[in-house]
């Protein structure tokens, strides 16, 4: 029992922030994203001994729960809410000196296509390998790598446009 709690705590320490970040790709606010993470973590916990890669499975659970949440709330309501909240609730923590750049990256990230962005988030902040991302998303590792490269290119393009403006 204590071992189980330790395992859960260790997983949350290591992946909690990234999991909430993944959830926020589909869920508007931090609070809702954490509700999604909680539900996903319980789903993961019940099935964790039957999966080959628990970390990949955990991220897959968060993604699936977030998509379920999105379907339940309705796309229009989600978009309106997301636009209102996103300005108030930052995705990243950072110093005031970095604030302008952080805001620019957050804005650029929102404009990256969803399927590319989820790969970028899992790779960069979740620390997953391409095979793990492939397992979590049900795609091939090559596709995951391609989407990652496209996401970086798109992000770079967006940031370049912003700096020109």
């Amino acid at each position: 029992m204590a071992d189980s709690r330790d395992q859960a705590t260790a997983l949350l320490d290591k992946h909690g922030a990234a999991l909430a970040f993944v959830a926020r790709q589909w869920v508007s606010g931090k609070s809702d994203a954490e509700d999604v993470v909680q539900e996903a973590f319980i789903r993961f916990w019940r099935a964790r001994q039957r999966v080959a890669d628990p970390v990949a499975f955990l991220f897959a659970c968060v993604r699936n729960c977030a998509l379920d949440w999105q379907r339940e709330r309705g796309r229009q309501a989600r978009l309106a809410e997301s636009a209102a909240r996103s300005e108030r609730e930052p995705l990243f923590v950072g110093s005031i000196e970095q604030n302008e750049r952080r805001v620019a990256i957050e804005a650029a990230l929102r404009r990256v296509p969803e399927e590319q962005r989820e790969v970028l988030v899992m790779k960069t902040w979740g620390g997953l390998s391409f095979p793990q991302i492939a397992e979590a998303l049900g795609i091939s590792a090559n596709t995951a790598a391609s989407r990652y490269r496209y996401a970086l290119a798109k992000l770079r393009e967006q940031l370049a446009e912003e700096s020109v403006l």
Partner: protein
Amino acid sequence: MSGDLDALESELSALEPVAISPELRRGIAERLAEVERLSRVGGGRQSRWWLAAVAGGIVAACFALIVFHVVDIRPHPSLVVITQPTPSQATENSVNSLLSYERAFARSTDEFEALLDRDAKIGVPSNNDAAANSVMSWSNPKVNALIGVE
């Protein structure tokens, strides 16, 4: 281009996503405790089912043993041993009966004498009186009666 991508990747990696709240940790801990409690209860139920199944199996096995035992103690059908005569016994038993002597005598005296000679050569064990009496020879009263000699 590759250098630009690497720089961007490094910049992105340096950004730290917002940490999860203590409420989320607490909520997960409470839900996990509930899951563990339910799994223990479920596990207890499961073990009770196992015990019931094992006990049922043992009872069924005992019942089967009793049934087969009852069937097995029925009286066995009596054995009938049929022994075939060995070749030597067959030779001994081949001493002819009075009827065969009568038939031989009716056919011809030569055949009758040949039959007597053959039986005399075979002989009979000394401790077998019944068999000795049944052996035909010229001194046997039955033979004498057969050929009309007093």
